[in-house]
């Protein structure tokens, strides 16, 4: 038998988290599937449950200076509707499930579920997002890649709650999100691709490339991105084959019930090539 708690303020929630080991529950759209049992019986939650969807302060989305702050209670629909949501995040979130689910599921929940196929996560990696982890008496900020440690695994500590997602709002004249799903809507990802770049005066001022569902966590390499930064069109053309080879070495997907490793890898590279050829190189001309 598990207990459930429904705090209405964040301090109250954090205090509860301090006292016992609980599963934070926001929209519940992943948790209710994960722990579902026979019709007419209770879901099989292994621990007490903390409901977060009655804490008004967590629902806030706002811009502070050059940072977008999305509260852990903000739903996917809220994120879509917010005017300053970066385009690729909006696209990624629009590609998740169907309107009914998006009206209750949260962005924070999508992150904490830490699925390799989590669609928002791929875009958030490319956007350099970080998360705020709060506990009674303090909070810490972690870059997203440090928070998500493996399939379904995060570095959320005992007593901590993910309370906010932060996205630096940078200039980016190129933004691409592609999801390859099992069908056109209400589908899980076979893979996804996010790219963000700022081109200034014919050279790459900044670039981020992220690949989802092709590894245990999102694949992104700051090292390879550094190699591209500051380069001109001509230099990129020379580097082109190396770039593809470097990413090819990093992308090591698996076979599962939704797709194959061979397909995932090939298509991820195709999307990268397509971004380089018809996105980046064109923009630099």
């Amino acid at each position: 038998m598990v207990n459930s708690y429904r705090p209405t303020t964040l301090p109250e929630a954090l205090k509860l988290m301090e006292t016992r080991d609980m599963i934070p529950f926001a929209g519940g759209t992943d948790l209710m599937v994960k722990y579902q049992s026979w019709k007419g019986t209770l879901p099989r939650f292994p621990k007490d449950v903390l409901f977060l969807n009655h804490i008004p302060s967590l629902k806030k989305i706002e811009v502070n200076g050059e940072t977008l702050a999305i509260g852990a209670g903000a739903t996917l629909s809220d994120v879509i509707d917010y005017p300053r949501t970066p385009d690729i995040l909006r696209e990624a979130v629009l590609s998740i499930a169907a309107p009914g689910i998006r009206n209750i599921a949260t962005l924070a929940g999508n992150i904490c579920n830490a699925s390799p196929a989590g669609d928002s996560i791929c875009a958030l990696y490319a956007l350099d997002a970080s998360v705020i982890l709060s506990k009674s008496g303090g909070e810490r900020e972690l870059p997203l890649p440090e928070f998500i440690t493996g399939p379904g695994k995060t570095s959320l500590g005992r007593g901590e709650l993910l309370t906010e997602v932060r996205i630096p709002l940078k200039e980016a004249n190129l933004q691409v999100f592609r999801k390859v799903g099992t069908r056109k809507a209400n589908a899980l990802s076979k893979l996804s691709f996010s790219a963000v770049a700022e081109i200034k005066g014919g050279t790459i001022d900044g670039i981020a490339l992220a690949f989802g569902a092709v590894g245990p966590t999102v694949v992104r390499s700051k090292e390879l991105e550094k190699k591209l930064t500051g380069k001109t069109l001509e230099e990129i053309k020379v580097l082109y084959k190396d770039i593809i080879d470097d990413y090819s070495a990093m992308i090591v997907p698996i076979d599962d019930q939704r797709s194959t490793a061979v397909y995932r890898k090939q298509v991820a590279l195709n999307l990268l090539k397509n971004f380089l050829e018809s996105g980046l190189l064109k923009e630099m001309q």
Partner: protein
Amino acid sequence: MNDEIRKSVRRVDAVAKASGLAKYISDYNFGDILYARLVRSTRPRAKIISITVPELPDGYYYVDHRDIPEKGKNRIQMIKDDWKVFAEDEVRYVGETIALLIGPDREKLLSLLSEIKISYEDQEPAYTIEEGLACKGGAIVGDDNIYGEYNLVKGDPDTAFNNAARVIEGTYRTGFQEHLYMEPQGMVGTWEGGRVNIYASAQCPYYIQKSVSGALGVEGKEVRIKQVTTGGAFGGKEHFPDVIAVPLAVAVNKIKKPVELIFDRIEDISYTCKRHPSRITIKTALDKENNITGMTIDTVINGGGYESSTLIVLQRALLHGIGVYNIPNAHVRGRAVATNTFPSDAYRGFGAPQGLYAIEMHMSQVAKELGMFPADFKRKYFIKNGDMTITNATMKDTVKLEEMFAAADEMSGYSKKIREYKDDPYKGIGISFVNHGGGFTGNGEQEIIKGVVKMKRTGENSAALYVSNVEMGQGLQTVLRKIAAKELGLNYTDIEYDNPDTDIVPDSGPTVASRSTMVVGYLIQECAKKLKTKWDEGVGAEAEHHYKHPSEFKWDQDTLQGDAYPTYGWGINVVEVEMDKDTYEVKTTGIWTVFDVGIPMDDTIMYGQVSGGVVQGLGYASIEKCEVLDGKFRQHTMADYVIPTSVDFPQIKNRFIDNPYKYGPSGAKGAGELVFDAAAPAYADAVQQLAGKNIYDIPVTPEMIMGLEE
């Protein structure tokens, strides 16, 4: 007159279903009910060594083969009675019923269920057609794993092949397909009037009656089956309900209390019958002028662990195996193989889609080899009235394929586009031609079904019709009312027609095989004519009508020779696609269909059948992947077993070509399965046109298309 009946009316069930008022089996309240959970095999092939059941509290029951009454039999009396109600000493597939655990509290049931310990001695399983044919792990059935084999021969295929200038060959495979009806399997058994009653979501109340009474060892009428509003079926509620109704009936017979057995979705996808996978090899013999002189078709379908209706499915696959073509010399061979997968069973089309997929793909590929466009080549071989069929009878239909092709071509621009896209690697257009025999094969309506319908005058201006056929979303309750009303000069809303109850309705047969409008509708039409002559006898006047096979159609079931079907529906599908060059994802940009269903009984209902059938066929062709891993269906959630949504395919542009059938009501023919048959080959053909490479297997996934390019 025909224009009158086809005019759309509001479906009698529209408001109840759209508003949520309609009551499905889960919505009923049977009072103090017990819940049942199946104790299932977790092994694909094993001997059961022992079963340990925990001590059960009062009011909890464990029901297994030992509870079958002495005069009964531990067999489900389907077309073949090989499938056991409860496994005894061996299991042949994962999910096989071993027992029922029953009690009032579901939480308690789950905890008791987890305490049941079964020890097995595992044996090596066979899953695929190849493993079955090779008798991997030893034969499961007989000494060769073959449930049955048939051979149909027309002309002299041996000589045709001996004299052939060239032979073109291809092997085509289709996979499992899950029905994914909106309402999962479910039923409630009660003890009322000193006998077992079953309230079921089902297509065939009398099939359930036969199975239940057979296992209990009682007369048919000693069990009552009441169909309740059924949320979809597609063949999935043809035989499978027997598989749960019989153990449920054994339990109710023992406990004498109401018991509910309703599947959850994952349980339903994991442990119900699917469409038979197939492997079909076709060889075509051509003479020096590139004319087809002969053809051999070797069909194998995967029947899974028990035979059930597999041989009847196989027969239909063979009878449709040569498609809409007149091939002078042909040999169609068919085998059904036993494996350790969940037994395969009925699914919209009943074998025909597998056969038609293979022949349509093959004919397109032969055309390509000969440097011709598919439609130009296929049209040369269209069967015509008076031509000889594969079962050596003359084609009795007036075949309007040419007129239908002209309509399809005009609507879709097929002939122009196939030339335009010839060298375009990203655009393709495909076409398929099919027919589908309405009603039971051969003289089955006469020999097996013997359908009876009854009607009664119930008021000044009202009548009731009594049939065992069910509404399952296809519109039958509206269409049969329209047919009766037309003869009686009444409004269709003045006709009463309830969900069938075996205590009340005669056995007009199962709701399967595209027979309900064509065969049962005709019986209603004729019965209504009789009732009209008795109308003046006043309220209570009754009429009854029995099926009589038209004497011009002859059939020998032992040799499968003669008129396989009295008439066929005919169909053409054109599908246009574009492929994404980076992801190999295929987008369907146009769907055009032309169907000859005799005369449509209601334009909107028939268009609903076209939309649903075609999109279901496109799902089968493109995304509905269903693999077996360790004997379990790998895609067993709705997240992984995906079917098309409304955004996956564009709206279908359809045209009906009238071609009335004289033994159909107002000229109607069977339509419910025909509308499924043509979509998969049209889609796969479109993709192979753009890829410039032959496609042999469905589903045609982006993963497969990428593989073609290598």
